[in-house]
C-alpha cells in the first residue's frame, strides 16, 4: 500500500491522496500521458481511496452532462451591443460639451454659497452681540447718575419749585 490513511484528504472528507488529485483530474479528462499515466496506474492499483474518488468523479461528470450550456444569444446581440455603445458614446460626448460650463457653474454656485454663509454668520454674530449687550446697558442705567430730564418750567412758580427740588436755591 503506497498511501496511508493519514495521507488521505481528511479535510475534504474523501479518500483521494492529495498528491495525486491533479493527475486524477487529468486521467478523468483523458489527458494523462507518458510516465505520469504509468505512475498513476500503479498507484491506482494499490489505492482504493483514489480508485473510489476517480469513480465518483466520473459519475459527477455524467451528472454534469445533464446541464446544458447557455444558448447563443443570436446574431442580433452584437447589433444590440453596438447600438448601446453608440448611445453611450453620444451621451459621453454631450456630457463632455457641457462639462466646462457645468464645472464653472458649480464653482460659481459654491463660491456664492460660501459667501452667503459668511454673510449670514457675520450678521448672526453681530445680532447676538447686540442682544447680549442690551441687559448690561439696562443694568448700568442708574437714575442717580443720569437723571431724567425735567420738563421745562411753565411759569415762575414751576421755576421756584424746581430750584427747591434740586436745592439750588439753598445756601
Amino acid at each position, binding site marked *: 500500500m503506497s498511501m496511508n490513511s493519514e495521507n488521505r484528504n481528511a479535510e475534504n472528507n474523501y479518500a483521494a491522496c492529495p498528491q495525486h*488529485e491533479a493527475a486524477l483530474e487529468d486521467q478523468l479528462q483523458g489527458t494523462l500521458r507518458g510516465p505520469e499515466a504509468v505512475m498513476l496506474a500503479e498507484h491506482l492499483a494499490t489505492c482504493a481511496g483514489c480508485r473510489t474518488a476517480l469513480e465518483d468523479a466520473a459519475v*459527477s461528470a455524467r*451528472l454534469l452532462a445533464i446541464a446544458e450550456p447557455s444558448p*447563443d444569444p443570436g446574431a442580433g*446581440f452584437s447589433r444590440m*451591443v453596438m447600438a448601446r*455603445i453608440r448611445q453611450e458614446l453620444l451621451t459621453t460626448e454631450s456630457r463632455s460639451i457641457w462639462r466646462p460650463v457645468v464645472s464653472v457653474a458649480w464653482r460659481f454656485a459654491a463660491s456664492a454659497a460660501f459667501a452667503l454663509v459668511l454673510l449670514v454668520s457675520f450678521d448672526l454674530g453681530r445680532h447676538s452681540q447686540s442682544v447680549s449687550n442690551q441687559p448690561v446697558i439696562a443694568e448700568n442705567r442708574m437714575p442717580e447718575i443720569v437723571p431724567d430730564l425735567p420738563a421745562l418750567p411753565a411759569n415762575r412758580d414751576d421755576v421756584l419749585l424746581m430750584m427747591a427740588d434740586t436745592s439750588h436755591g439753598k445756601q
Partner: protein
Amino acid sequence: MPNVPKNMAATAAALSLPVSRREKGEEERQLVRLAQSGEEAAFEELIRRHQQRVFGLVSGILRRREDVEDVVQQVFLKVFVSLKRFDQRAAFSTWLYKISVNECWDYLRKKKVRPLVYEADLSEEQVSRLDGVVSADQPATSSSDRAEARDLLERMMEKLPEQDRELLVLKEVEGFSVQELAEILDLNVNTVKVRLFRARARLMDVYRRRLHSKPEQPAEGKEG
C-alpha cells in the same frame, strides 16, 4: 531523396494545427488593431466571435439568467472603452474573459445577490429518476425528463460552495479548458485541476446526501 518529402510531410502535419491556430490568432489581432483604430465593424465582429463564450462564462458565474444579458452588454461596453489600452501581450479572449469575470463579481457585490435556496427535498420519484440518469443505463429521453434532471442538478449545485459551482459549470457545462480557467481566474493550472477534482467530490457528497439518505421528515407528523 525519399526522406525529404517524408520529413516535410511530417513537419507539415505537425505544424498544421499550430499554423491554423496562429493564422486565426493573427486574424484576431488584426481585428483588434482595426477596432482600436475606431473601426466599429471590426469590434462588432469581435463581439460576434466571442459573445457565446462570454454568455457561457457570465451565466456560469451568475445564477440569475435574467441578469446575464445585461452584464454581457456591460462587459462589451467596458471592452470597447478600454480597448485602446489593450497592448495585445495576452490573447484578446483571455483579456475579455478576465473583464467578464471581474464584471460578474462587481455585479454580485453591488447587488448583494444571495444564493438561491431550495428548501424542498427531493421526492422518491425524483431520486430514482436522477439515479437512472447518473447510472447511464437509463438515459433521460424525453425533454421533460431532461428538464427535470437539469432542475435537480441545479438544486444540488446550489448546495456547493460558490467557487466549486463556478468551476464545475465553467469546465463541464460551458466547456472552458483547464488552461483557460487558470488564465481567467489567475490560478496555477495544477490548482485548477485539484480544485475541480475536489469540487466533483463535494458534488458527489451532496448527491449522496440528498438522494440516498431518507428525507428528514418528522415521523410523528406522518403517522399522525
